[in-house]
């Protein structure tokens, strides 16, 4: 009789996060082995694996916030925050306006400006969103700022970083047997997980995640009432200075600018109910740090 290495197959499938394939494997193993005992063993392994998969694939919101908060501390530590209350309040008002269009419950977004010439923006789980001083300098109106913040909010909404943490944690944290759980009550484990997320944040999310955030962000900013071309115009305004914008366009992980513009263009015809608000004058009056 042909013997299926069921535990190995199940572990592999679980590592790939493939639940439907898991079910299929159980069915196949049952068919091929043809014995009730083996089927029960496979079923038992499946249930254990499923239990673990559920634990790993569903990091609770309060833990996401905790992880995101620690990641945010590292982001703030790397660049420093622009400690300008008027500017930070303004960015929070724009961000909150966009966030009202995000129907995801339970996220209280916080926004801050990073003190660097680098053109960048990033978000951590739980709603900590950053935009750099360098990015603000090349923007021309509030709709561009709203578009960039909407892109980051979309990352949070789609849980891109959280999903990446979950994928990597399976091989890095507490993954020795199916009995091990990702114990986020343990500060050391939480710290490891946050470090995993921070590394991914600074190395860059994947191409598909970026394109999804471009599409969703454009829809969000339009729903918030801003000119929906804000993000598109921001991408067009990037001057290609490799020291400032290399992370944004056409590197190992980010799509080329043309691909990103095409993704946005797919969405624009569906969301452009009108021109939307630019708020250029208000932006110019409030963009610069006061001190």
């Amino acid at each position, binding site marked *: 009789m042909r013997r299926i290495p069921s535990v190995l197959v199940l572990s592999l499938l679980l590592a790939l996060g493939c639940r439907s394939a898991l079910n299929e494997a159980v069915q196949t193993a049952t068919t091929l082995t043809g014995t009730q005992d083996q089927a029960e063993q496979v079923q038992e392994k499946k249930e254990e694996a499923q239990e673990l998969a559920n634990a790993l694939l569903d990091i609770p919101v309060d833990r996401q916030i905790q992880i995101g908060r620690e990641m945010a501390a590292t982001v703030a530590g790397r660049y420093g925050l622009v400690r300008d209350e008027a500017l930070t309040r303004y960015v929070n008002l724009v961000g909150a306006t966009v966030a009202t*269009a995000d129907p*995801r419950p339970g996220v*209280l977004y916080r926004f801050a400006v990073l003190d660097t010439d680098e053109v960048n923006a990033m978000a951590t789980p739980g709603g900590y969103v950053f935009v750099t001083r360098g990015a603000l300098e090349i923007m021309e109106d509030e709709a561009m700022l709203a578009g960039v913040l909407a892109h980051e909010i979309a990352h949070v909404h789609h849980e891109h970083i959280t999903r990446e943490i979950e994928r990597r944690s399976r091989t890095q944290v507490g993954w020795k047997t199916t009995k091990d759980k990702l114990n986020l009550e343990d*500060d050391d484990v939480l710290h490891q997980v946050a470090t995993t997320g921070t590394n991914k944040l*600074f190395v860059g999310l994947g191409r598909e995640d970026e394109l999804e955030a471009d599409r969703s962000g454009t829809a969000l900013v339009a729903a*918030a009432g801003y000119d929906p071309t804000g993000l598109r115009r921001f991408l067009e305004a990037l001057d290609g200075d490799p020291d400032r914008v290399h992370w944004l366009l056409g590197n190992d992980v980010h799509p080329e600018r043309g691909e990103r513009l095409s993704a946005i263009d797919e969405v624009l015809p569906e969301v452009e109910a009108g021109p939307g608000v630019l708020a250029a004058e208000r932006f110019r009056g409030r963009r610069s740090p006061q001190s």
Partner: protein
Amino acid sequence: MRPLPLTRSGSRRPLGALVLSVVGVAVMAVPLLAMEDLSQILAERVAEIPAEPRAYRETWMLPAEGTVAASVDDTEIVARAAVAQLDGDELVEIQRFRSDGLDEAATILCDDGRWYLRTPMADSPILETALREDPLARMVLAGPPGEAPRTRTLTDDQGALRAVVLREVLDHPVTADDFARREGPMEADEGLLAELRGIDPLRGDRQPVASAAPKGVEEIETYDGKVRVVPDPQGVEWMESFALSVPEFERFRREMRLPPYDALPPVTVTAKEGS
């Protein structure tokens, strides 16, 4: 998780939490009702409450006390009212704006034609409460419980602007639960009260989440290689200190006619930006 307004499939239109009324967008002059007896206002209102389930929210903007407003931009946002209607019954929650936040909501219930003020303790006949003398409550209740334009302007007998009201039809499935008495005070994110506030991202009532203390210097992978970073948890605390108040947020959106204020007349000074 609810989907974003538009997903990759591209099949959805932007919606947010609100479905804007399609009744009309024109500013409509409506003579302000004289301060008639509240019992008369309620008697007229109960006859007009639609039977079908529906909910809407109104933002009330009034001239500052003792002033005359030349335009909507001279008014202040003073209150929100959320209304749920079901089988001829009605729940009205009115929440006043302060300079830095919101007052407790006043909850008014119409049950089988009788009107009550609901408190955590009891439902009291409204005409036996201080609310019968409240000018704002009387204005809200004197408004049309049925169809109404997105924006209506209330004037006095001399034609002076007395109030501007924005109405948004809510995508809120009204059920008997909305009318049920709850034990204890209602949480800010429950039922109609959440719709009344209408600004989930500003909700400041979430319990703070303790964070594991960063472990000194971190070595972080970046696109450019490894870098050493000293985390700044105090920076995050500073970031978290920026709690926006509802009035500040509403003024910010109204200034540029961002939704729902896009239903108001264009901004006079910076008309280009509001368009």
